[in-house]
C-alpha cells in the first residue's frame, strides 16, 4: 500500500497558537514513526496558510521575528471550498518565477492540531466539509459545542451527567446592566465563585472571585476574550481528574490528576512548568510537561465512574477522534462533576494513552483511519436532488 500523506495544520489565530505548534510537532513525530508522509501546514497569527517540509522544525518558531514565508521549502497556500479542487492550492500571491518549483500539495487526510478559536471551534471543520476532504478529529457541531462551556452544560444535563450550575451574561447585557448579573450570581451562589469565558481553552481568563468587586473585575477581563462569560460556584478543596476518550467506538484512557499549587489549573501551570523551556518560555513538551499523577489515585470504583461519564460526555456532543474530559471531584470524594471537554487536547493527551498501553503512533494512526472511515460513510449522503425546481420539476 502506498504511503498516505497527512496534512498537519497548526498555529492559527488563537491565544493557544504556541501550544498548537508544540502539539503539532509531537503529532508529526508520531505520524512519521507510523509511516505517513507529512505535509506540514502552518497558519500564522494573521491567518495566512503556509505549507512545506521546512515548517517541520520546532526550534525555528522560538526565534524572535520568525516569519514562515522566510522558511526554505515553505509556500503560501489555501484550501478552496470548491469540492472539485479537493486539495491545497498555491495562494495567488505565493512565490512565482521562472525557477519556482511548485510543491506537492496533495494530502489524503487533513489533521488539524489547532487549539482554541478558528481551529478547534468548528470553523475550520466547516471549511473541510465544504472542500469535501477527510479530516481527523471532531466535526463541525461537536467542535463548536466543545468550545462552548454554556451549551455543553445543557447537553450534559440532558444526557443525565452531573454538572455545576452556572449563570452567564453576554457582553451586550454586561455593558447595559452589570449590576443585574452580579445580583443574579450572588442570589444563586455563595462566594467564592469561578468566572470564565464561555469559549476559551487553556484556562485563559479563568479566575476565582471572593466578592462582588472581584467578580466585576474578572468579568471585565474575561469579556476581553469572549462575548459571553459564565460564573459558577467554586468548589473548595476539590481535585481535578481528567480522562481521554477515542472513538467511535468509544474507549477511555486511564485517568490523571494534575498536581498544581493552588486550587485552579492556570495557563502558566499548564504550559510553563517543566524543565525545557522553548517557545515564549513554554515547556517544549506542552501539556505533556505538566506535573500529574497517572493513574489518578481515586480508587477503582471512582476511576470506572469517571471513565464511564467521559465516554457518555464524548457521545453526548458527538465527538470523533479524540477528546479529553475534565472532571471536578469534590472534597467528599463522592460528588463528581463534568467540568469541560477538549476536542483537541494539548499533546493529544498521548501521555494518558501511553499509560493505557496505546503508543502515540498507534493513536494517530487510529485517528487518521477514523477520518478516512468517516469520510467514506458520508459519501452516500445526498445533499441535492436531481430535479430543477426552476424548470418546472424536470430533471436538471
Amino acid at each position, binding site marked *: 500500500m502506498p504511503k498516505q500523506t497527512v496534512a498537519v495544520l497548526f498555529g492559527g489565530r488563537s491565544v493557544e497558537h504556541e501550544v498548537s505548534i508544540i502539539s503539532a510537532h509531537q503529532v508529526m*513525530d508520531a505520524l*512519521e*514513526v507510523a509511516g505517513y508522509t507529512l505535509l506540514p501546514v502552518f497558519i500564522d497569527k494573521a491567518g495566512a496558510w503556509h505549507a512545506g517540509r521546512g515548517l517541520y*522544525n520546532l526550534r525555528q518558531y522560538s526565534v524572535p521575528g520568525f516569519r514562515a514565508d522566510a522558511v526554505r521549502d515553505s509556500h503560501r497556500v489555501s484550501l478552496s471550498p470548491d469540492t472539485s479542487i479537493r486539495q491545497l492550492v498555491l495562494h495567488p500571491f505565493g512565490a512565482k518565477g521562472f525557477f519556482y518549483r511548485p510543491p506537492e500539495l496533495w494530502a489524503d487526510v487533513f489533521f488539524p492540531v489547532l487549539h482554541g478559536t478558528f481551529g478547534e471551534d468548528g470553523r475550520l471543520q466547516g471549511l473541510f466539509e465544504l472542500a469535501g476532504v477527510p479530516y481527523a478529529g471532531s466535526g463541525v457541531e461537536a467542535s463548536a459545542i466543545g468550545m462552548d462551556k454554556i451549551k455543553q452544560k445543557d447537553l450534559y444535563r440532558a444526557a443525565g451527567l452531573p454538572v455545576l450550575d452556572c449563570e452567564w451574561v453576554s457582553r451586550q447585557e454586561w455593558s447595559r446592566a452589570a449590576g443585574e448579573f452580579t445580583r443574579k450570581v450572588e442570589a444563586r451562589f455563595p462566594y467564592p465563585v469561578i468566572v470564565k469565558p464561555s469559549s476559551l481553552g487553556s484556562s485563559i481568563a479563568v479566575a476565582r472571585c471572593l466578592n462582588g468587586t472581584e467578580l466585576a473585575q474578572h468579568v471585565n477581563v474575561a469579556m476581553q476574550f469572549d462575548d459571553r462569560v459564565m460564573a459558577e460556584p467554586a468548589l473548595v478543596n476539590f481535585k481535578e481528574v481528567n480522562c481521554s476518550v477515542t472513538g467511535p467506538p468509544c474507549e477511555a484512557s486511564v485517568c490523571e490528576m494534575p498536581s498544581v499549587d493552588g486550587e485552579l489549573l492556570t495557563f502558566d501551570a499548564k504550559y510553563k512548568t517543566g524543565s525545557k523551556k522553548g517557545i515564549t518560555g513554554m515547556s517544549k513538551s506542552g501539556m505533556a510537561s505538566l506535573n500529574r499523577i497517572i493513574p489518578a489515585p481515586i480508587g477503582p470504583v471512582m476511576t470506572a465512574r469517571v471513565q464511564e461519564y467521559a465516554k457518555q460526555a464524548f457521545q453526548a456532543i458527538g465527538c470523533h477522534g479524540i477528546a479529553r474530559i475534565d472532571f471536578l471531584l469534590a472534597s467528599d470524594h463522592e460528588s463528581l462533576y463534568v467540568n469541560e471537554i477538549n476536542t483537541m487536547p494539548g499533546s493529544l493527551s498521548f501521555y494518558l494513552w*501511553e499509560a493505557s498501553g496505546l*503508543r502515540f503512533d498507534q493513536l494517530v494512526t487510529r485517528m487518521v483511519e477514523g477520518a478516512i472511515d468517516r469520510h467514506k460513510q458520508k459519501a452516500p449522503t445526498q445533499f441535492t436532488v436531481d430535479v430543477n425546481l426552476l424548470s418546472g420539476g424536470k430533471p436538471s
Partner: protein
Amino acid sequence: MSTDFLDINGVRIRYQEAGQGGEVLLLHGWGARLETFHPLFQALSHGFRTVALDLPGHGESAVPPEPWHVSDFLGCVLAFMDRRNLEKPHIVAHSFGGRITIKLAALHPERAGRLLLTAAAGVPPRQSLRTRIRRMAGSTAGKLQRFARTRLPASEPLVRAFNARLLPRLASRDYLNAGAMRETLIHIVTEDLTAHLPRVQSPALLVWGDQDRDTPLECGRTMARLIPESELVVLEGAGHFPFLDQANKFNLLAQRFFSEGS
C-alpha cells in the same frame, strides 16, 4: 524507579530500574552516565522493564582497577545482566555503548534481543586530512613523551609545557576529559569492530542524526549494510545525541521497535 549499586567482580556499579514487561537495557556513551537517557528511560518504563547503568569509570560507578578493553566492559555487562536476571534484553546503545553491544550480539547472540544502535561507535569513520594529521601528530607526541619520561628525566619541564600548551590542540575532548580512564579510552577507540557486524543476528534499528560529527552518518550506513537484519532511520537536524535532540520521535521509534519484538 529504583537506584542501587552492585559489585561486579570488584567494581561497584550504579544502576536504575523501572517498569514491567519485556526487558530493555540502556548502555550510554563515553563520558556520559545513565541520566543521559532520562527521557527515553521514562518513555520505555511505561511498557518495559527498563534498566540503565553507569558503565565502569562513568557516572557514580567505580573506575576499573586497570586499563580495560571493550571485552572487559562486555564481561562486566554480561555479569551485570546475570545478576539482574536479564536473560536476553533488548538493548539501546549510544556511541561507546554501541561497541559493547556489537561485540555482545556478535559473540553471544543468545543474550541479545532487539538492538537499537544510535550514533554507535565501532566502525572507524573516514577522516579528513586535517584530522589525520592531527591524530598522527598527537600519537607521535605521545610516543616522544613516553620516551622522554623514561629515558630523559631532565626533559620533564618540557613535557609539562607540552601538555599545557599543545596537548589541548591535538587531543580529542574525550581524551582530555578521560582522567584515569585515558589508557582505557586508547584501547577502546583503536578497536575496529567492522568484522563483527555481519555476525550480529538480532534485528537492529540504527538511528542516526544527519548532523552527527562524532560518529558520522556514514558509520550508520556501513552498519546498515553489514548487519543482516537492520534498518537505518535518519533524523534530520539531530546530532550525536538523537535521543535528546529529537526525544519525542526517538522515544516513539524505540517503543515501536521493541513492541514488535515482544
